[in-house]
């Protein structure tokens, strides 16, 4: 074989080949299934919970990734644009943004109003269920998010988004039951999924509120919404 001058490229190529060899050997030797001890499994269970939470939080901050992940789940809320008027928006920054999704039959058109830029009121729940603590609160683009968790790792997610009365919403859900309630004189619905998870949807004025809870009764989730109050103001 011809001798060449040693370069970074040659070194890199050599390490890529070495990696292939090592991976092959590693996979070959590790085919046996091991019965892990209970102590190991307990430690890993805790680590998994903690890391999954970290991954979820990271997803929140990446809206595109978040939306594509959202598109993979069975519950879909579809807002249908009924009139073309955008007069309701005073801020010229507002715009529609089309986004690709994994669902062939659907498209996402995101009505973007940046809550951090314009005048906006951010509402948080007026009641926090016992044992839950706020672990994240922030505005990300057109969403205001609050994330709660209890010691068992169950979570509650609270979303506030901007919409206008030029939008109506149709909801396509696969749920076991629907709980209906009233907040500030307007109706809200909580969709109860087969898994026990609850999903709340409520429109009021310029805002849509959504919340999800892993391990909470529909009544208690509704209570969070009914007592909601302004917790941040951008003017």
């Amino acid at each position: 074989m011809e001798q060449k001058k040693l370069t970074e490229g040659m070194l890199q190529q050599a390490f890529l080949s070495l990696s292939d060899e090592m991976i092959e050997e590693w996979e070959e030797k590790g085919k046996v299934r091991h019965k892990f001890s209970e102590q190991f499994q307990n430690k890993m269970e805790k680590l998994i919970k903690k890391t999954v939470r970290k991954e979820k939080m990271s997803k929140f901050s990446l809206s595109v990734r978040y939306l594509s992940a959202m598109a993979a789940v069975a519950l879909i809320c579809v807002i249908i644009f009924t009139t073309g008027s955008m007069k309701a928006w005073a801020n010229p920054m507002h715009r529609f943004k089309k986004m690709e999704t994994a669902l062939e039959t659907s498209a996402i058109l995101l009505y973007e109003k940046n809550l951090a830029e314009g005048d906006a009121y951010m509402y948080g729940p007026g009641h926090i269920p016992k044992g839950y603590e706020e672990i994240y609160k922030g505005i990300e683009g057109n969403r205001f998010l609050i994330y709660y968790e209890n010691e068992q790792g169950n979570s509650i997610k609270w979303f506030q988004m901007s919409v206008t009365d030029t939008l109506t919403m149709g909801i396509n859900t696969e749920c076991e039951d629907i709980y209906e309630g009233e907040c500030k004189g307007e109706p809200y619905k909580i969709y109860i999924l087969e898994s026990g998870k609850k999903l709340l949807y409520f429109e009021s004025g310029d805002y849509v509120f959504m919340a999800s809870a892993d391990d909470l009764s529909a009544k208690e989730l509704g209570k969070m919404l009914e007592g909601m109050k302004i917790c941040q103001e951008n003017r």
Partner: protein
Amino acid sequence: MIFLMMIDTEEDKSKFEVLYEKYKNLMYAKAKEILKDTYLAEDAVNEAFMKIADNIDKIGEADSKETKNYIMVINKNTALDVYRKRKRDTRLEMPGFDEEKEDAYIINEGKDLSDILCTENQVLKVIRELPEKYKEVFLLKYVNNLGNAQIAKSLNISEEAVRQRISRGRNIIEKKLEGIQ
């Protein structure tokens, strides 16, 4: 306009869970091979997963070559750390314990890579023989394209140690290639 909104991804298994299911047995087998002890091997796997969790943002598809390389390197590095620590702990009872003399390799500092003529097979042969602590740094650098800071965080060493290992590792490679010529 259509607006799709979804609140949760409960069916979506997290990346970390997928990695755990896919690699735990492979990692255990390697750790057991190094440590020859079931409980120490499990501890090493647990520690390795803690490092992976800390660096989960650097990991892509569970099946990709880069992910396999990263996990394999962290797995071996952690098991060797446990092994070294155990060796240190028993050192008092083991007179004559021989420390690795890494500085013996420091030669030819500053020599230009381009001065050395070699074949691809010769380079591969030389890097196969490279001490593990240099090999792992180069694997993360060249296969995972990590910078010094990311390598340092992944291996739980300082950035200065990463720089030194890259420099010393290169010296070893050059010296050995010169010896072949």
